[in-house]
């Protein structure tokens, strides 16, 4: 089994790195997804062309190979070295931003044309229509697929272990080599990834409820999950339990 020392020196910092990489990549991907996704609904062909080109290129690129390219090829071409963690975040942010842009574009396209017309009739500019009318209405539709994408991104962060970023998978491999026991450590890794994904899902569920409440749709009843939620007696929910919007039930 893994010793306490190994756990504290390698594994825990690795978990923290995984969280950081996930967070930074997700943030970058979110910004790209919204910018590219809204650009792709533009009426100007040139804007659609530029954003569409971005989407096609980065959707079709292997994040892993792109990481290798950033870390091993870029320095040869430009005499310019990226910090490995930054390279990892960049590769995943750009790739997942492309995937996310499709979700944003699709949800925006699903907002009824009548809403655009109502906005136009009241004199809103294109930007105001997007900001005040179309994005807020499309947002609840985006949350579930974005949740999927975020979990995929979390699991994809294991790729950074191949470019020497000491994330949790990297630490796991170190421990495995040190202990020459692979079953316990890989099982532990699977469990930790699962727990992280589960926490993300729970968090996104709260976001989804809030989003739906924000367009006047009653939050969906999820009594089964309510019962499962880790709630401190008498207090606010601890692990993102949806106590805020659901109210007292």
């Amino acid at each position: 089994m893994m010793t306490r020392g190994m756990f504290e020196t390698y594994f825990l910092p690795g978990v923290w790195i995984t969280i950081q990489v996930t967070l930074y990549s997700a943030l970058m991907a979110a910004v790209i997804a919204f910018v590219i996704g809204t650009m792709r609904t533009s009426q100007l062909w040139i804007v659609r062309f530029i954003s569409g080109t971005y989407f096609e290129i980065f959707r079709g690129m292997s994040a892993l190979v792109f990481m290798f390219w950033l870390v091993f090829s870029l320095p040869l071409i430009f005499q310019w070295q990226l910090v490995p963690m930054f390279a990892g975040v960049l590769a995943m942010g750009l790739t997942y931003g492309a995937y996310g842009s499709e979700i944003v574009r699709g949800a925006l396209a699903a907002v009824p044309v009548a809403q655009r017309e109502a906005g136009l009739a009241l004199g809103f500019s294109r930007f105001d229509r997007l900001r005040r009318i179309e994005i807020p209405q499309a947002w609840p539709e985006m949350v579930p697929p974005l949740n999927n994408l975020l979990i995929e991104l979390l699991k994809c962060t294991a790729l950074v272990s191949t470019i020497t970023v000491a994330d949790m998978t990297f630490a796991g491999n170190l421990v495995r080599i040190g202990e020459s026991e692979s079953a316990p450590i890989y099982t532990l890794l699977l469990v930790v990834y699962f727990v992280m994904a589960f926490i993300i899902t729970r968090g996104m569920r709260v976001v989804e409820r809030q989003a739906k409440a924000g367009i006047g749709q009653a939050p969906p009843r999820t009594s089964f999950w309510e019962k499962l939620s880790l709630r401190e007696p008498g207090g606010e929910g601890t692990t993102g339990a949806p106590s805020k919007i659901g109210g007292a039930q």
Partner: protein
Amino acid sequence: MPASVDSQESNGQSRASGAELVRFNKITKRFGDVKVLDELSFSVDTGKHVTLIGPSGSGKTTILRLLMTLLTPDEGSIVVDGDYLTHQEKNGKLVKPSEKHVREVRKKIGMVFQQFNLFPNMKVLRNVTEAPRHVLGLPKDEAVHRAEELIELVGLSEHLDKYPSQLSGGQQQRVAIARALAMRPQVLCLDEVTAALDPELVAGVLDVLRDIAQTADITMLVVTHEMSFARDISDAVLMFDAGKIIESGPPDKIFTDPEHGRTREFLSTVLRGL
């Protein structure tokens, strides 16, 4: 309270009633091979209420949508309050209008849709204040004050804090009327505003509109199949058929003694339901 609906107040140009406010010049509009409007010309004077009637597909709604700039004409021009809506004058020539020019002229026009089209992500009050605040640049308390007055006018003061999805169709449509009026347009387009409502909710909406038509100094362009309503509020009725005006005149004349055979035929079909 009804004084707040005064359409000329905010836009400054207080024009004598009777001056021409909207003019369609030889407008042609095609959808594919179908010519929906065929060199149509007509005008509406300030303060007048004009109702467009005619069989479905005769181009009535298209006229309102052209005026609201939701469509652009294939040929011809539209003038609103002395400004071209479809063009822009540059060095004495008429050119394609800039987005900014269209937005400026469009401010004079308001529209209420058949399907209400309220913003589901905003509560009732914000539906009405959003455009005055962010398009006209009104300070928040002024926009709220204006909205509250209008929402009271349409009889929904107790629903300020609800989402559109929590209201009935008739209530939603009354909010939509308040929302359009909050922009203080000079022309209000009403596009079959009761057609999507359950029968028992129609009267409430029409009463509100009758009230506005009587008390407010606003020009109205109305497409409706509610003939008694049309008769009550209209100064003039235009009968459409196949993209052309085939008959026009005061409501009493059109509804009791129409000259054109198509008008008689249309009216008898519509009124049979009553």
